[in-house]
């Protein structure tokens, strides 16, 4: 058997486990069935519109405002999550304290909760008569029915991503690196900034990308807190919903295509950034 296997792969780089053809075929078939085919019907739907019609839909002021809000709030939420996610990951990875496992479990709640439930809960807390809203409103900060509310919801939804990508990296970080930095004369801040932080960048970028992508597609938790005012607090996924409810499938598909293209471009860019940081630090 081993002899026949050896001749089968002769000429190619030998692997201990065969099956490149089979596994690649399955991968492509599966990706097509689950991702590519549904997405291509989107493009087909949109193509029933003429260029002029499509342009009128995707470049309408209402659509443009929704893109701005969706991308802006997702980026802002992901950015906030990078800062606080690294902080929470640091605390979870470095310290042992009573209630640590509880905190660890709470981090995953935004994953587990139905998004509509999170949306209602957030709205209740930040509304004028809610706990936080009652404090913020007199200060002139309007957290519900505003772009700020959308950002809050997307921050909440994206919370676990950065923490869960950065935490294992921090836990695996060799304590000798910090000791080396200390013997070389680096203080605590210099050690953190020059030694630890750069080691976390690839993981933080991954977490950022995941949180951002999740925020872009998020619908359930946003619609309650945003108030859905056209041109002001209407997110792009909601605009698509609205079109669908008006039986304007082609228009919905056109907007969806714009979202799709933009997020694909952004994620591709982030992937390249990751590849670049990986190449620099090298994987051993």
């Amino acid at each position, binding site marked *: 058997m081993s002899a026949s296997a050896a001749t089968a792969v002769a000429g190619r780089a030998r692997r201990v486990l065969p099956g490149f053809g089979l596994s690649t075929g399955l991968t492509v078939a599966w990706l097509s069935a689950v991702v590519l085919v549904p997405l291509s019907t989107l493009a087909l739907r949109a193509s029933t519109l003429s260029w002029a019609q499509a342009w009128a839909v995707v470049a309408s002021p209402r659509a443009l405002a929704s893109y701005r809000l969706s991308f802006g709030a997702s980026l802002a939420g992901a950015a906030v999550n990078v800062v606080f996610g690294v902080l929470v990951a640091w605390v979870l990875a470095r310290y042992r304290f009573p209630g640590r496992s509880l905190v660890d479990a709470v981090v995953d709640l935004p994953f587990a909760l139905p998004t509509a439930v999170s949306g209602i809960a957030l709205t209740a807390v930040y509304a004028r008569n809610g706990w936080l809203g009652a404090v913020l409103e007199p200060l002139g900060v309007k957290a519900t029915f505003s772009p700020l509310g959308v950002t809050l919801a997307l921050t909440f939804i994206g919370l676990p991503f950065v923490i869960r990508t950065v935490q294992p990296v921090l836990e695996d970080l*060799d304590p*000798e*690196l910090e*000791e*080396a*930095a*200390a*013997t*070389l*004369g*680096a*203080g605590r801040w*210099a050690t953190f900034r*020059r*030694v630890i932080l*750069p*080691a976390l*960048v690839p993981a933080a970028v991954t977490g950022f990308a995941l949180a951002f992508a999740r925020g872009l597609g998020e619908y359930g938790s946003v619609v309650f807190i945003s108030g859905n005012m056209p041109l002001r607090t209407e997110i792009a996924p909601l605009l698509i919903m609205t079109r669908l409810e008006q039986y304007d499938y082609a228009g919905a598909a056109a907007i969806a295509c714009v979202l799709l293209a933009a997020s694909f471009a952004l994620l591709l860019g982030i992937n390249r950034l990751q590849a670049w940081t990986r190449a*620099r*630090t*090298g*994987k*051993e």
Partner: protein
Amino acid sequence: MSIQITGLSKSFDANPVLRDVNLEIPEGELVALLGPSGCGKTTLLRILAGLESPDAGEVRHAGEDVGARSARERNVGLVFQHYALFRHMTVAENVGFALRVRKRPRAEVTARVDELLALVQLDGLRERYPHQLSGGQRQRVALARALATAPRILLLDEPFGALDARVRQELRRWLRRLHDELHVTSVFVTHDQEEAFEVSDRVVLMNAGRVEQVGTPAQVFEEPASPFVMRFLGAVNVFQGRVDGNRTWVNDLEFAAPGTSGGAGAVRKSAHVYVRPHELEVHRAAVPGSFEARVVRLVPLGAAVRVELSAPGFGKAVEVELDVRKGEALGLQPGEAVHLSPRRARVFAAPDGEADSLTASAL
């Protein structure tokens, strides 16, 4: 800078790793801390670096107590077994790290980095990242990085432990030459006797948290202060002896009585006689002071031959190491009976306990 260590003790979770260690390291010497794993040598090094704090005792650098100074304030160069290079920095950035955190001007950093990379012979690799280097090159980068601020003390924790045998050989010689050039007081930890002997001026033998002996490689090998040192530094035959007055008897072979190292004034009944394999003579016929043994196996070792023999009353197995030419002249065959006479023997009183703890700790 000289180092004085007095009364140093350290425990981890009530587990003593250093017990009352006293040691003096003169300025400019290269000293090896040698011992089996778990003997406390790495902990001692980490205390010198300021990465651990002792439970008792003090460390002085050139007479000044440094106990209150943190690792970052000691200006001690430290080299780790697994290099601990910063992976996101180039070779030049790694080497210049200590200068950059001290906010030295850029031109000075560049000049010093060039100088250090020339010293460790890595001039062409400035812009490489650590993962693009071989193990030996990485360790040289780590050494250059540790030397950047011209520390007065250099500490190395098993610096060649992660490298393969050939590279290790090369780097040992290279480290010795580098030390002869720089004359920085250096302490390096190893569990490899050959490495310690080849590189260091003096060897500090440690066992179970204590210093067993300090001396030049020749001293510790020729005049071991304790059974532990005798056993740790290479193979040795151990014979059970009986003490009678000021003589020790192994069967009908006569040796001197145990030295004072076995405990002053104690009257002991039994002693151990240690004979190194190369200190046993092989004879075809019986000579005065010899005993009979039967050849079991011959193992060629290149320039020498190891002869394994059995000798009733002299332990289960006796080892003799012969010069190849001498071995050929004797023409030994397995199964033959020969006579062995010790040229030199060291006698230590047998330990009090019934179990011989040294056997377990010696490698």
